[in-house]
């Protein structure tokens, strides 16, 4: 039996209006970018595509994305004042707009974040409606995940045995891999691994300590409870 919808897909999400795709989904894309940066962001460069570019103001898409980058969930009323709050926290940001990027879904955002500790990350996500999103690109690698499960994002040198090593490290702690998605460029491989439960810090450290691993992030499943998000 395929997975049945929850009654809370129908009665919900609880969200800041006005639009589940242009507001709630947008905040989630910002929030995923923050998790992937894994640091306090000091600068954000955001490109809005297509419908996001055309109607962002009327839907508060710009406030929602900045809210997400600050760590606010889609139902967090601070989204309304996110620009003022971001200024107070010393976050600088810049929006760019591309109205006709046919290769992207109609509600797409690219978020590039720079962290206070010097790291940076670039993410492209699409908002699918009903607050659901799909992450489509991380650091130039094509990916495809919805952040409804615990997800590991790993970038590593593309050496033989890399996938086996990483899945081994996860299995060692009894965590099941639900899905795995690998993409490659000339020298590196990107792995997106959806898990049945969270991995512990030890597993993460173990993967991170492998000399050929460049980047490891744990993305938590997106739920509407803002208590799950940073306050």
């Amino acid at each position, binding site marked *: *039996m395929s*997975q*049945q*919808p*929850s*009654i*809370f*897909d*129908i*009665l*919900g*999400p*609880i*969200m*800041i*209006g*006005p*639009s*589940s795709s242009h*507001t*709630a989904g947008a905040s989630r894309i910002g929030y995923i970018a923050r998790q992937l940066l894994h640091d306090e962001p000091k600068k954000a460069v955001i490109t809005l595509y297509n*419908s996001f570019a*055309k*109607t962002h*103001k*009327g*839907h*508060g898409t710009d*406030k929602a994305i900045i809210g997400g980058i600050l760590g606010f969930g889609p*139902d967090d*009323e601070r*989204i*309304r004042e996110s620009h003022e709050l971001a200024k107070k926290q010393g976050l600088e940001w810049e929006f760019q707009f591309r109205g006709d990027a046919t290769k992207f879904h109609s509600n797409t955002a690219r978020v590039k974040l720079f962290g206070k500790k010097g790291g940076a990350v670039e993410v492209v996500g699409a908002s699918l*409606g*009903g*607050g659901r999103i799909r992450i489509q690109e991380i650091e130039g690698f094509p990916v495809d995940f919805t952040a409804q499960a615990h997800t590991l994002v790993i970038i590593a040198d593309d050496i033989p045995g890399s996938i086996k090593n990483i899945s081994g490290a996860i299995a060692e702690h009894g965590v099941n891999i639900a899905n795995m998605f690998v993409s490659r460029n000339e020298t590196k491989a990107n792995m997106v691994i959806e898990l049945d439960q969270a991995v512990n810090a030890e597993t993460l450290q173990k993967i991170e300590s492998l000399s050929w691993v460049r980047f490891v992030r744990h993305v938590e499943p997106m739920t509407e409870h803002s208590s799950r998000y940073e306050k």
Partner: protein
Amino acid sequence: MEFNLLADIAEYCAREKKDMAQAMLDYEMKNKHLSREDVYSGLKRVLLTMEDSVEQGLTQMVISPSGMLNNWAKTVYNSKTETLGPRLKKAIARAIAVGEVNACMGKIAAAPTAGSAGIMPAVLVTMIEEHNIPREKLLDGLLVSSAVGLIFAKNSSFAGSEAGCMGETGSAAAMAAATIVYLLGGTNDQILEAVGFALKASMGLVCDPVGGLVEEPCTTRNAVGVANAFVSAQMALAGIKSLIPVDEVIFATKEVGDLMSPRLKESGQGGLANTKTGRDIQKRVFRTAE
């Protein structure tokens, strides 16, 4: 546990000797591995959000950033002229209240969508006010509404871009009609009849929001959705029957949605969005907002 038709749910109820709220409770607990308390605490959060959004729209200043909505809920609520007494007037003001709160980036519970989020709260608050329904019981009313939403989502669509506004305010009115019948002690058959009436009244409704914003005509369509819900519930409770069985009505909404031109489904290319005034508003809003 899987329900594909409203008739499946009714059958389950008959077999297990349960009402529709209990059937949906079983559904959620089994499929999502939740306890009874988990489900009810989730429902409580939804109800609280709904009540707050009505309250906010009726008490606070709500002028949408585009300027299209300007404290209409209070205007209707306080109107001296009453077409059918204070009850209908107040009920529809509550739906407008949520629409305005939503447009002003307030907190709402989508039910089933953000655009149609005013209908369920307006109906629930009205059922407390006018029928003294205890708040606990409203949670069961929400469960009943979710049965309708579940089957509608499976066999038709909530997306304005697929089923037009029939999929948003139409399905919300149907969910709300079911809730009213349930809360007033109607039978499962009557619940299904009410859903049928509400959907038939929304058949073919287009999605044509001005400037692509969830304001005009969305907000007033929510008000009409509340009226639709009460009218449909009234007919069903009186005992008249929707001649086309409700599951067939839902399949018809899918067919009609598919047949509707894409220009009339959230694309901004037809209907009110494409009127001279609609275009003028769009230009004004997006110029001044930049």
